[in-house]
């Protein structure tokens, strides 16, 4: 028997490459979470009376609710498909650290839903008339917030993986957990746009993200293992 083994880093890289490839396979699919986010933010104005001042006030809220929901919609696929076709089982049995591999999958989720938001956030903020100096703050908020959303969402997806119809149960589990992200994120964004200091909500957001980053891997692995039984 060949005793040559692959290292964890190589395996995680292969996993990430595979998931990205699956997402890219259907060309334009990577853009879809972003597209969805744009559509959601486009819906608000439609549903509102065309009073522009109102719109500017709720823009940060719409941005963050849109981010949360687009992240949520993509979550459903995170583990469910892998569980159904048996590849998750293979992942659990490959002898490499399971927590790490699951985090790699979460990273893919962030790459597909979080990163695009980070990239368009400056644009959106400019369109809303945020001052130039506010950019670093907004970027930091969106970066931290989307990371936290992916981590929390992954735990929720793991929990509901073994349940068959999880569409809204997942949402119900994740949304309350994600509420702090939303609150601090929207607050920081609103302050940044208004040109006021945003350190307070930003620190809270950072603290929350660190907290989820420490708790999530463990909870994630435990949840998925139970789902596999």
């Amino acid at each position, binding site marked *: 028997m060949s005793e040559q083994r692959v290292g964890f880093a190589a395996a995680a890289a292969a996993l990430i490459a595979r998931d990205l490839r699956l997402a890219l396979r*259907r*060309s*334009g*699919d990577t853009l*879809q979470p972003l*597209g969805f986010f*744009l*559509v959601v933010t*486009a819906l*608000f*104005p*439609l549903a*509102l009376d*065309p009073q*522009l001042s109102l*719109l500017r006030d709720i823009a940060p809220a719409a941005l963050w609710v849109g981010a949360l929901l687009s992240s949520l919609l993509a979550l459903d696929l995170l583990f469910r498909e892998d569980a159904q076709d048996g590849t998750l089982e293979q992942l659990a049995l490959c002898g490499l650290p399971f927590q790490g591999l699951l985090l790699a999958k979460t990273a893919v989720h962030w790459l597909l839903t979080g990163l695009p938001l980070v990239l368009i956030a400056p644009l959106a903020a400019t*369109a809303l*008339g945020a001052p130039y100096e506010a950019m670093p703050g907004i970027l930091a908020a969106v970066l931290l917030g989307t990371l936290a959303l992916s981590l929390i969402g992954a735990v929720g997806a793991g929990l509901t993986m073994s349940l068959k119809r999880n569409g809204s149960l997942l949402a119900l589990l994740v949304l309350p957990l994600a509420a702090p992200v939303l609150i601090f994120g929207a607050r920081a964004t609103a302050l940044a746009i208004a040109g006021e200091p945003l350190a307070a909500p930003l620190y809270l957001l950072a603290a929350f993200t660190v907290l989820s980053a420490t708790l999530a891997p463990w909870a994630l692995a435990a949840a998925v293992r139970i789902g596999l039984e």
Partner: protein
Amino acid sequence: MAWVWFHRFGSPPHFYRLATRLTPWFAWPAALLCLAGLIGGLVLAPPDYQQGDGFRIIYVHAPAAWLSLMVYVVMATSAAVGLIWRMTVAYAVSASCAVIGASFTALALATGMLWGRPMWGTYWEWDPRLTSELLLLFLYLGYLGLRNSIDDVGRADRASAVLAIVGVVNVPIIHYSVIWWNSLHQAPSVMKFGRPTMPAAMLVPLLLMLAGFTAYFVALLLIRARGELLRRERNAHWTAEAAGATATG
């Protein structure tokens, strides 16, 4: 008997030959009309008493916006024809429309945004007209996304045809959104019943540009549809002949 022309039109080789012959008849007028329209619009038309020279962007914006809607209607109609009569040609036309339509929509959005900056002091407002035009872009993107997600051409044709037909309800909504809501955007001043409310020196170049854009669209459509047909029918023998004809001639 009256249907014979229809079935002839629907036969891929016949359509291919027809399209090849017709393309120059649209491409050249398109170039000439656009040139005339641009000269009329950018040189001859007087500056607007309110907007100065800024208004001249209308000569790209309005035709692009009109065509974004018209192309959708063409796309949906040919999709319906394809579904009902199982015509490859109609499917090919429909599939070729999507990218063109999406480009016109993007162009209308981009020129509108450029125009909005001097006019409304902002590139973008969540105004009903602007938003619904954005939704039209999403509709095109959804159509393309659906097509791309299905590998089998036949299935992709039929599935995206269903989507195109269902999506046609959005067209009137975009068109009338300015009337139904009190929008920032200009109400129709040309495309409405009765007399247009625009001085002739401005209007005539606009109409020229509109005609030019339309001819350009048809020419582009014919070229793309030919490509689509060749891709679909690559196993049929007429394609070899067509390829040979293009290679030699």
